[in-house]
């Protein structure tokens, strides 16, 4: 019995670590840059496929790929914000209008990125085996790559939180989240900071993609599912709250693991029911103001 509970809890945390990481990225993009990025999962997919290519073709260790994928996806995100979203932001009459039009632009990006990926890598499911040996942990057994995924997700998440909390740039980002206009008057280069935020959001997605590819199968259409999960997590944790996304991600992982243990096909259904109940009962989330 205790072993079963431990089994379920650890499996939940392993999944939750990835959820937390990708949700933090989305939270940054929506909470600060005000872009409801429907294409978030596509950045995850890019990260996963670059890692897969580097491992199967060149033989580069996936952990090294973290340092390669991250910057690539960051640059893509940064350039996209400077070209598309800055323009939309300037043309929009109100923040609400920008939210609407930027979300629609993200739909366009979703189609473009997904289909470019299908052209490059084909539509098939892909995967590779890396550190797939079993590890015993207090009577439960897990693949080593999953544990490694959790460790890295927690590490990246903490480093990022410290970056936001302790550095000067982090302070600028938090200021921009509270009030972009006032932050601009205080000397924050607002366009640059918003673009950086979008880039950092993509960076987290890229890291997430690399970690996902280590223990799960990947395919070019995988993005939307992760995007939806990331949405559920940021609503659960409170829109725009980075610690909230982190805790929310782990929580949702746990819920998923419990439901999967009881009735395997229903974990996604359970996510949506939680999501919808939450939107109705407390749309500001567990840590929201």
């Amino acid at each position, binding site marked *: 019995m205790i072993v079963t509970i431990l089994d379920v809890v650890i499996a939940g945390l392993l999944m939750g670590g990835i959820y937390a990481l990708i949700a933090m990225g989305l939270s940054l993009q929506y909470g600060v840059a005000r872009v409801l990025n429907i294409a978030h999962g596509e950045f995850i997919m890019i990260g996963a496929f670059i890692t897969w290519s580097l491992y199967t073709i060149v033989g580069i260790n996936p952990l090294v790929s973290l340092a390669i994928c991250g910057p690539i996806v960051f640059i893509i995100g940064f350039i996209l914000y400077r070209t598309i979203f800055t323009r939309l932001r300037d043309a929009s009459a109100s923040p609400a209008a920008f939210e609407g039009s930027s979300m*629609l632009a993200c739909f366009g990006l979703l189609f473009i990125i997904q289909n470019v990926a299908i052209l490059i890598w084909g539509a098939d499911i892909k995967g590779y085996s890396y550190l797939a040996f079993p590890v015993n942990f207090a009577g439960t057994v897990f693949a080593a790559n999953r544990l490694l995924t959790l460790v890295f997700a927690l590490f990246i998440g903490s480093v990022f939180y410290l970056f936001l909390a302790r550095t000067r740039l982090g302070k600028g980002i938090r200021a921009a989240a509270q009030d972009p206009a006032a932050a601009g008057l205080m000397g924050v280069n607002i366009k640059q900071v918003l673009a950086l935020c979008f880039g950092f959001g993509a960076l987290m997605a890229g890291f997430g993609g690399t970690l996902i590819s280590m223990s799960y199968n990947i395919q070019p259409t995988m993005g939307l599912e992760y995007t939806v999960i990331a949405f559920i997590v940021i609503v659960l944790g409170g829109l725009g709250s980075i610690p909230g996304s982190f805790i929310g991600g782990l929580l949702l992982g746990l819920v998923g693991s419990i439901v999967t243990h009881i009735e395997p096909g229903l974990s996604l259904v359970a996510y949506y029911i939680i999501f919808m109940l939450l939107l*109705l009962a407390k749309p500001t989330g567990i840590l929201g103001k």
Partner: protein
Amino acid sequence: MDIIKAVSKKPFELGFLLFILIVLATLPLYAPEYAVVLLTSILMYIIITVSWTMFSGPTGYISLAPAAFFGIGVYTSALLALVLPLPVVIGIGGLAGFCLALLVGALTLRLRGIYFVMFTFGLVELLLHFILWWEVNISGTTGRVVPTVANATVYYILLIIFSLLMLTTYLLRNSKFGIALQSIGEFEEAAAHRGINVNVLKTIIFAISALFMGAAGAIMATRWTYIDPKIAFNPLISFMPVLMAIFGGIRYLYGPVIGAAFFAYVEEFLITRFPYHYMLIFGVIMLVAILYMPDGLVGLIQKLWKRTSGETDAVT
């Protein structure tokens, strides 16, 4: 009343519309089969887009639930088409969409902006995964077969739904309810203070728009013959009307019609010639439309028209 007023004011425009309707109605008599099939899919997109715009256009609430209402219609057809006559099935399909929207509308009254978008999108995925699980684990089927109907019948039924929809949209736009809906989109609190029952109005218009989507889904199911939850609740059905309406021009009566007709034709054209690139080209068109044509195709044409002829803005 409104119709009589409109006839006396715009006899030419009404005559032109009647002419188009007659051409469309007699089309299966002389046009090749392919034209009818093509027009069927164009009509389907027009119906979904116009009914989406009926609610989301004036209020500014971006609903990503069309796939849910359409899918409920498709599934009604899959369950009942073998036992009930077609018109009844379509009626029930529309009613199913209506009831679902009524429920969703009543639940989401308090949600605004991005929360509403996310809730409606979650609804589609919830229905898809729940019905998928139900089919696999409870009823033990993975797909269902719908009896086929003659192409011309499908076409005529869609044409009837389309005509009813356009009439409803036109009457709504020119009624006090249409103006009330518009004022909700501009400033919801102010609209409520003016004595508009904001929540009831939003819910009812949302449900009426879902009625048409459900009915369209019920008849389109007969075209596909094989139905499973992933076909019925395809999220693309939710994204397309948003894209089509914005591309055509969300503020104009004919904008969504033109946007949907254009895209449905482009889709057909691209699928046959560039089967591997068409979604990519779609994405590019969408981005360009949002970046450079905020008022849509109709808005762009009117702007050009104004520049060349110096006339004032035509109210459509």
